């Protein structure tokens, strides 16, 4: 389990664009929750 978490934490092998997409999705998810909560 710890080994699995250890490998999950590292995404160096991912292409940089994929890492960027992941971060953008994270930011949009936060914005979406705030937007839905505000409605």
């Amino acid at each position: 389990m710890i080994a699995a978490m250890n490998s999950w934490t590292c995404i160096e092998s991912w292409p940089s664009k994929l890492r960027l997409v992941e971060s953008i999705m994270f930011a949009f998810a936060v914005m979406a929750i705030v937007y839905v909560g505000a409605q």
Partner: protein
Amino acid sequence: MVVWRRAGIDFVHLLQLQHTSVGQSKSPATIAIQSATRNSLIFLVVFIIFNKSIHFALRHGYSMTFAHSLPVLLTIYFLWSAFHPWKSRKVWWEMLARVLMAPACPVIFRDGFIGDILTSLVRVLIPFAFSLLYLLLSVYAWVVNDLSWTVSMSDKWWTTNPILHFVLIPFLTIYPLWIRLLQCLRRSVESGHRWPHLANASKYASAIIVISLATFRPEYRGNWLWVLALVGATLFQYSWDLTQDWGMLCFSVPETKENCSFADVSLSFRAKRLLGPSWVYVSVMITNLALRFAWTLTLLPPPNEEDGLTVYNLVTKHVGPILAAAEIVRRMVWGFFRLEFEQIEFLQRANPAKDMDLLDIEMVSTVSISLVAGLTGAFVRLQWPSIVPLPRGEQQTTWTGWACFFHRA
């Protein structure tokens, strides 16, 4: 600065201030103290003259033009001193601009440090916005030759304008947290490590969600789920302070065991300490827990007078200003220990072969900080120059908490 210097923490290098007047000065603390003293005195003198002028004008029926021109002149002075002399002020504005433009600029340690300070200044930024509004209205009133108009209009705008309550205050409250979130995401992309950056981003995301719900949907404030989320987000921030920002508590795994599970993980107190004995650290941990919850209260929107006498209104209206001041003190103490841990990590990175024998920075001055925080504020008591070398050969299982834990596993 005095605390950092006495503890042997090279804050000029860690915060990359070498090219600033503070970094080039032999006594950088003197610059900061002189500047703070001068500005505080000017503010207090103007404040007293303003009050006396108002009373005098009201009692004798004179015009209040002079009194109302004082806050405007004071604001103009502070703005002028913030930009003049431009040669030395420019570097500080550039530092702030780097933070505000997140995630456009590469994130260094200083950017995160400034971003965290900004999150503590929410209750300062809101009155600051009011000051700027007051200045603009006063200038307009000056043009139309009716300075009394400034008072009535600024008050009215401040209490009733929907743009203020649904745009400006939420923006000032959430934007510092949003900056830190974006900085963490950028570091995750650049470093290729989810840990600790995505977890740190989650910390700011949880704060943003909880605060924005309270801002846009005030009826949620009484909901137990929202209260639970508020407590959870605050505890998340607190645990992050202890394990990551300060590194006071370390998660350790046995070095000899190959297939270790979560049951083998133990929590230990960091052995290498620059800022005094262990009781100082324990007292700071306890105080930080109380003030962390206080900080969350300062982020909540101002009370709505129409709701009448509620607990929420009482707390935010009367205790709020004190909590805002306490948050500034908390952030100051947070800064002591944040840079201490960064210094220890820096030395560890510079010389990984050794297990961070802090005697390399010989005769570290031990600074005892006793923090007594109460409703009226806090003070920091410094004891020096008690030159006490740290114990040699103490073995530390982990240095960076979870990060090291994962790599070792």
